[in-house]
C-alpha cells in the first residue's frame, strides 16, 4: 500500500529548479533512506510531503490527500529537522505534555527514559540545549509521537558518534515495536544503511534511483586488472569511473550490462568486487568526466 504518491512534481525557487518532474511512490511501513548531494532537492521534496511547501506543477498525495495546509495529514505525520522550534516559555517537560495532547499514539514514558539516557534535563528550555542535545530531543520527540509517517531530515546532525549509534538502534527498535514509514535523510549513509529497507536517490531535482538496498548496491561493480584485458570489456558496457595506472585499470561499471561470468574474468586476472551503498551513490551522482584531479592539472 502506498502512503505517498507523487506525479510529475516540480518546484522552483526563482530561477532555480529544486525538483523536476519527480514521480515516486512510498510504501507504508518501510524505513527508507533519502540520499543525495547538497542541494539535490531532498529537503524540498520532504517539505512538500509534509505540506509545508506547495508544488508548482504535478501532484502529491499523502494518505490519499493533498498534504498542503491539510490538518488531516498533519495529524498523522511528523517532520523533524533542525529548524523545529518550540515556545521559549516552555520547559522540555511541558513540550512533551503538549505532544501527548496532540498525537494519539504518544509514548510519554519512553520519551522520559530516552532523554534520561541521553542526559538531557527536562526542566531545561528548548533553546538552552546544545546542538547535539537539541538534535537528540527533536529525534526523541519524533520517535515517541509514533506517527504513521515519520520524516527525519538529517536527524543526527550535531550528535556525537556514540549517541548516533544508539539512536539508529532506537529508530530500529521503535520501528519493530510499532511499524510505520520512516523517511530519513543523512549524509552518513554508511552509518544507517543496515536499518534501511530501501533507498531513494535524488540528484539535481530528480529521483535517479529507488530500490531495495541490496539491489541498489549490486547495480554497479568494480573491476580491477590488466588494461589490455579490460579495454575490450569496458568498450561494451557503461563505465562510471576509470583510472589507469601503470598498465593496471580500475573501473566501475554497470553490472547489468556485463555479460561475462566472474569465473572467466578471474582467469583473465580481472578482480571483481562489490561497492558499498555510499560508493554507488557517489558514482551515480558524479558528473561524467568530473574529477578532483583535473583541478590540479
Amino acid at each position, binding site marked *: 500500500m502506498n502512503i505517498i504518491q507523487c506525479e510529475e512534481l516540480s518546484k522552483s525557487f526563482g530561477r532555480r529548479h529544486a525538483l523536476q518532474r519527480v514521480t515516486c511512490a512510498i510504501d507504508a511501513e*518501510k*524505513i527508507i533512506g533519502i540520499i543525495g548531494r547538497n542541494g539535490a532537492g531532498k529537503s524540498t521534496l520532504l517539505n512538500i510531503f509534509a505540506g509545508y511547501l506547495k508544488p508548482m506543477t504535478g501532484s502529491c498525495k499523502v494518505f490519499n490527500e493533498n498534504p498542503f495546509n491539510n490538518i488531516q495529514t498533519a495529524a498523522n505525520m511528523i517532520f523533524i529537522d533542525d529548524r523545529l522550534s518550540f515556545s521559549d516559555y516552555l520547559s522540555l517537560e511541558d513540550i512533551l505534555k503538549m505532544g501527548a495532547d496532540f498525537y494519539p499514539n504518544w509514548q510519554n514514558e519512553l520519551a522520559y527514559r530516552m532523554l534520561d539516557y541521553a542526559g538531557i534535563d527536562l526542566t531545561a528550555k528548548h533553546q538552552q540545549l546544545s546542538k547535539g542535545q537539541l538534535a537528540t530531543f527533536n529525534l526523541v520527540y519524533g520517535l515517541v509521537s509514533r506517527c504513521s509517517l515519520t520524516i527525519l531530515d538529517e536527524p543526527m546532525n550535531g550528535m556525537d558518534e556514540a549517541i548516533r549509534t544508539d539512536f*539508529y*538502534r532506537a529508530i*530500529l*527498535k521503535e520501528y*519493530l515495536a510499532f511499524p510505520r514509514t520512516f523517511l530519513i535523510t543523512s549524509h552518513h549513509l*554508511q552509518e544507517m*544503511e*543496515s*536499518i*534501511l*529497507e530501501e533507498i531513494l536517490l535524488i540528484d539535481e531535482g530528480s529521483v535517479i534511483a529507488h530500490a*531495495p*538496498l*541490496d539491489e541498489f*548496491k*549490486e547495480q554497479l561493480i568494480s573491476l580491477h586488472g590488466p588494461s589490455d584485458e579490460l579495454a575490450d570489456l569496458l568498450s561494451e558496457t557503461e563505465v562510471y569511473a576509470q583510472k589507469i595506472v601503470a598498465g593496471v585499470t580500475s573501473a566501475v561499471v554497470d553490472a547489468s550490462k556485463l555479460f561475462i561470468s566472474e*569465473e572467466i574474468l*578471474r*582467469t583473465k*586476472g580481472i578482480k571483481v*568486487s*562489490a*561497492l*558499498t551503498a555510499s560508493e554507488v551513490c557517489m558514482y551515480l551522482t558524479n558528473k561524467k568526466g568530473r574529477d578532483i584531479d583535473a583541478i590540479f592539472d
Partner: protein
Amino acid sequence: MHVHLDGTTPIYMQIAEWLQHEIIADRLQADQKVYSQYQLAELFNINPATAGKGLTILLEEQLLYKKRGLGMFVTMDAKERILLKRRNEILTKMAQEIVLEAKRLLVSDEELLVLIRKTQEGLE
C-alpha cells in the same frame, strides 16, 4: 557474529551464512524453530526485510521449512546438505584459485600435487 557493513558481501547473504553456520554447529538442530526476521533484525541491528531475505535463501534451498503461523524450522537433512554444498562449491572455487595462482607463479602440475600431498601429511 558482527555484520560487516563496509564489507562487500550483502547483509542478507551474511545472515544466510550465519544461519548455516548455526546449523552446522548444531546450535540449530533438525525440526528446531529458527529465529524470526524480527529477532534477527534486533540481534544484528538490521532492517527486518533484510533479515527476511536471508531466511528466504535458506527456505529456497530447502534448509528450512515453514509451518503456517508458527514460523520456520530446520529441515531434517539441512546439516548434511549444507556440508555437501560447501564441499562442492567452496572447495571447487578454492581449487580453481590455487591452480590459477600456481600457473601465475609458474609452478608445474607435479609440484602443485606434491605440495598438496605434503600439506595433507603435515595436518595428519
